[in-house]
Each structure stands twice: as structure tokens, then as C-alpha cells.
């Protein structure tokens, strides 16, 4: 009946709205966290047991690349670098 259809679509709208709200809160928190990493010393744990330290710069919005400075690689310091997020398992910093 039309009654149950409209009840169902109201429930769908509610569900969509709470999903949008959750997504917004989560995304905003993540963006704030990345902003707070700027100019901090960050340790990256990467695949192949690679661990490197760098000064965090910025990240693109699709989270594909991290732009960093003073990257301490196993063979020396690279002044400016991009790190692929696909190569990274985790990274950490102190605030």
C-alpha cells in the first residue's frame, strides 16, 4: 500500500541522513588530524620493513600522496619528497 511505501521511504531517508552525518563527522575529523600533522616529525612504517622519518607537509584529498620534507631514507636525506600512500602501512606523530 501507499502507506507502507511512504513509511519505508521515510526510513530510507532517515538512514541516508544518518549515514551522511556519520560520514561528515568522520571526514572532518580526519582532515583536522592531517592539518595538525603539518610541520611535525612523522615516522612512516612502509612495506618491505622500511621505516623512515620526515617532516610532514600536506596530503591530497584522495589520500594518495603525502608531501614531506627532510625525508631520512636509508641512503641519505631527500630534501623534498612524495610518498605514495599505497607504500605506507601506518604513520605516527606526536602532538
Amino acid at each position, binding site marked *: 500500500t501507499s502507506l507502507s511505501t511512504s513509511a519505508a521511504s521515510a526510513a530510507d531517508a532517515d538512514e541516508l541522513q*544518518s*549515514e*551522511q552525518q*556519520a*560520514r561528515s*563527522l*568522520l*571526514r572532518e*575529523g*580526519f*582532515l*583536522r*588530524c592531517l*592539518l*595538525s*600533522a*603539518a*610541520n611535525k616529525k612523522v615516522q612512516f*612504517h612502509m*612495506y618491505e*620493513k622500511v621505516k623512515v622519518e620526515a617532516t610532514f607537509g600536506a596530503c591530497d*584529498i*584522495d*589520500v594518495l600522496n603525502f608531501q614531506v620534507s627532510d625525508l631520512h631514507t636509508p641512503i641519505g636525506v631527500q630534501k623534498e619528497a612524495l610518498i605514495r*600512500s*599505497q607504500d*605506507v*602501512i*601506518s*604513520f*605516527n*606523530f*606526536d*602532538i
Partner: protein
Amino acid sequence: MQRGWPLLGPLRWFRYVNKKVKVKARKDEEVRGWLFTVDPVSASMVLVDFRENGGVLVQVVMGHAVEEVQVLQEADRRTADHLQTMFLPPRTCILEP
């Protein structure tokens, strides 16, 4: 439990927020901390750990590397409040020395 962490979606990720979790990531990494947020774009997890000296350690585990998530503890009110104000205001240090 979680094979498909990146596929859970906002509502289910949200249930882990403010909980202390143990995350198993690729290549035998294990990370513990309070879950601050999950990026809905990359499924990456932001974990926060309060150090004894008052400092705060922030650990981000990339969504593609997450293998298993286990809830260890619920946050009490104070911890939850503290967590949610963690990165506010967003830009206190626009002017660097």
C-alpha cells in the same frame, strides 16, 4: 573479524569511534589506541594514545593495510570528550617561527 574493513561504511565505522582498539595491519604490525576517526575516503584509522608525560601519540593506519580490528575498551565520558576536542582548533599554528 574484519576482512573487509574498507567496505564497512560510515555507520559501522562510527560504532568503533571512541573505543580503544587493537588493529592488526599488514606485515605483522599491531597498533593500539583510542579510535578518533576513520577517513570515509581511504578507510584509514586515526588512533590516539595518551602518554604518561602528558603527550599524545597519533597513529594513522592506512585503510588498505587494516586486517583486523578488535575492541578492547569503551571510553568513559572524560576520555571521549578529550578525544573529540583533540584536533580543535584546526589551525593553531599557521604562523610558524
